[in-house]
């Protein structure tokens, strides 16, 4: 199972190796998609967590108990339709098939439900039709 999450850390937790401890304890794989600290010193982390469902849920529970606010996200990549020229160069690069070719309309389509926000389509798009919106 995998989850894509936005974690908001209060200033008191910023200097603690929370994620590192959690992934060891619950045998999780993680991929940091974005990390930043706001001027108010709140830490924000966009993270993909993979692991056993039970372990993943326990880890999320533990984070909540520590005072970390958790927001689940489906997608943070957007397609700006009017910029897309329907060339298809992004399609084979998408690792999860979130971008696909619709034969009837001969158009490139984006399914945000499947997107894991890896960002490869953003790099691949010559007309900047794919954008990250965090």
């Amino acid at each position, binding site marked *: 199972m995998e989850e894509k999450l936005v974690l908001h850390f209060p200033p008191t937790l910023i200097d603690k190796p929370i994620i590192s401890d959690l992934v060891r304890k619950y045998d999780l794989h993680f991929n940091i998609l974005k990390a930043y600290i706001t001027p108010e010193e709140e830490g924000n982390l966009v993270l993909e967590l993979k692991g056993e469902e039970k372990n993943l849920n326990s880890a999320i529970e533990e984070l909540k108990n520590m005072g970390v606010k958790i927001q689940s996200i489906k997608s943070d990549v957007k397609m700006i339709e009017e910029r897309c*020229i*329907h*060339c*298809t*160069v*992004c*399609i*084979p*690069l998408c690792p999860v098939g979130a971008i696909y*070719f619709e034969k009837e309309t*001969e*158009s490139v389509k984006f399914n945000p439900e499947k997107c894991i926000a890896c960002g*490869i389509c953003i*790099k*691949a798009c*010559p*007309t*900047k039709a794919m954008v990250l919106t965090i």
Partner: protein
Amino acid sequence: MGKTIAEINEKIKNGKAVVVTAEELIDMCKKQDVKKVAKEIDVVTTGTFGPMCSSGLFINFGHSTPRIKMGGGKVYLNGVPAYAGLAAVDVYIGASSLPDTDPRNTEYPGDFKYGGGHVIEDLVAGKEVKLEVITYGTDCYPRKNLSTWIKLSDVNEAILFNPRNCSQNYNVAVNLSKKTIYTYMGILKPELGNANYCSAGQLSPLLKDPYLKTIGFGTRIFLGGGVGYVAWWGTQFNPCVKRRKNGIPLSSGCTLALIGDLKQMKPEFLRGASLTGYGVSLIVGIGIPIPILNEEICRWAAIPDEEIYAPVVDYSNDYPNCRDRVLGEVNYAQLKSGKIEVMGKEVPTGSLSSYKKAKEIASILKEWILKGEFLLTEKIFDFPGPESGYTFKSLRVRE
């Protein structure tokens, strides 16, 4: 008996010409005898919409008061350098020009967010563009610097002049190495992770008239949403390329130099492009009408994707080092199916050229001709053909 362009133009003027897109012609020729189709059809329209780096724009800004001599100085449009080795207020901005401040590939792979192609797109979209000039003063042109805003309607001339567009055929790019590479053919994943192509195939202009029997100097075309002309043969022109029996070249083949008035063009058909790790470019929309003068021309125009083959080339080692190895040949029907087989492996495909837009261009050109707004031209002269021996040479680097 064949037709002449003059006869076809008479029909166009009288609203009686029969015009179809190349895609429609292919369908007709599958169902009917080509001889019959050739008699019935007067014009076939084609289209293509892909990145074409050898494109650019001549601009004449008009004179400021006091006068400034841009020629020999430095000229920037939205921070992108334009070539100023011309007369006082003439410049040329190339599609691949980059701001001096662009980090290029020092931050690999570079983003190449904005460059010459984007300046051209902004101008054609009617946007204000910043013009900055630093130069030397003369007695007749005393001003040494200038910073102002211009838009397309402000300038005297804006002439799109592209020395090489409309490649006849193109490589299918793959990566045999163990790391991702960033090329002008897009991002290529390691060990045959994907295969990228760049042609409209059965709609692409020069694949529909493979020996350029109807296309030559002066041919009137659809260029960037307006009317343009074939201005010369394109650079790297290679009519002596190896061909299949049906005339289709096995590699790039012929190209065209094109010219047109940017003020007539539309941003939907001229788009700036950023190719990660490579640079910037301009995506150009081109449509060329092919007069069906006889059965032979009809037969060529009706060649379908299944019979148009492109070479598969490794861009990790072979292409950079000019090794002529071809890993295989695949046709555009296979490429458009979304996967091909290369060295026994199934490889997913992507295209840099938009077939949907190519179709739109062929349809618009068809409409223009049907409405009598667009007449065909006799070419003023033929370009070198396969018998000419004209070919494309490499650069020999000498000590």
